């Protein structure tokens, strides 16, 4: 009897560990599936039901997720263009409020 007790405890531990691993794997799979389903089910969606956790407003292929750091459109005010006197030249363009 005393020799079998550690074995039963080990078995229980193994079963608990296996169950835990299955639970984690199932949760991860469900999460990925839900995100993927939401993504794929709204290609260029134009309606809003309010019930979908993630909607797509675009018709892009969605293959890329550019990082925040990739944009260089607005890098702050660290440099500026150059202006100079126009002399006697006639304007070719104008800047104004639109």
């Amino acid at each position, binding site marked *: 009897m005393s020799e079998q007790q550690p074995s039963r405890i080990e078995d229980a531990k193994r079963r608990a560990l296996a169950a835990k691993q299955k639970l984690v794997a199932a949760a991860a799979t469900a999460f990925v599936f839900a995100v993927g389903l939401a993504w794929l089910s709204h290609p260029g969606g134009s309606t809003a039901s309010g019930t979908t956790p993630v909607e797509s*407003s675009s018709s892009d292929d969605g293959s890329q997720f550019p990082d925040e750091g990739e944009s260089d459109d607005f890098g702050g005010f660290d440099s500026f263009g150059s202006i100079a006197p126009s002399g006697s030249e006639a304007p070719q363009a104008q800047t104004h409020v639109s």
Partner: protein
Amino acid sequence: MSRSSFRAMGVDVVVGRSSEEIAVDDVWHLVCAWDGIFSRFRTDSELSRVNASAAAVVVVSDTFARALRAALRAARATDGLVDPTLGGALVAAGYDRDFAQLPGDAGAVDGGAPGAWRSVSLTGRLLSRPHGVVLDLNGVVKGMVVDDAVRLLPAGSFVSAGGDLATSGPVVVALPGGSSIRLETGGLATSGTTERHWVRDGVVQHHLIDPRTGRPARSRWDEVTVAASSCLTADVAAKAAFLLSDDGPSWLDERGLPGRFVAHAEVVENDAWRLALGADAVVS
């Protein structure tokens, strides 16, 4: 230099180029495509769909994400003066349709919500924002599309949309209130209220919303012109300088940006502007 023009995004777009053989079709397609994404007045635009969506998280297009990313960076760089979340405040002020279709005085308006750019999160193309936040990216879109458009053309060309200009070669530009400058490269933009304003309950409203109040800003200036490395940067800086009113010229100087301010008949140039044109800075 030859010039072509067309109307898009509610403004006149002018393309100046050194060769007649260079078609403006590419520029036209680009501007129309951006209008289709960012128009506040087209129900089928991506911006309208995003604003209409009740979903907490929305997947946006690459172009939309790019513009929103620039808008959020502009908000951070201006301490929230240029804020992409003022779409609701614009509607509250009465700017709820294309400007040309705005009715006469249609009675009192409510104040809009203050800016809430810090509540907007963009991770890749996943956009999340609180319920009720209405985006308006026109604070950056016009400058961005002008910068993109000039890159489609050969060196020495310029593109202007509603007076906001980018060039890849020297161009002489007429300024508000008279005089002109030569813009060697980069961008030049003017913000102000002399054109786009309307009346509600006897009170003049305009499109430059103060994010601190959610209402049209009160500024000493009628028009502010800024030169910068790009049209986007110039446009953002001009809006911020306008909203800062008396502090606008020094705010630009602190960032090394030339600025020219017009108020009625008065023209004020900041030190960076004066130095760039060979004049002495004003010693205070």
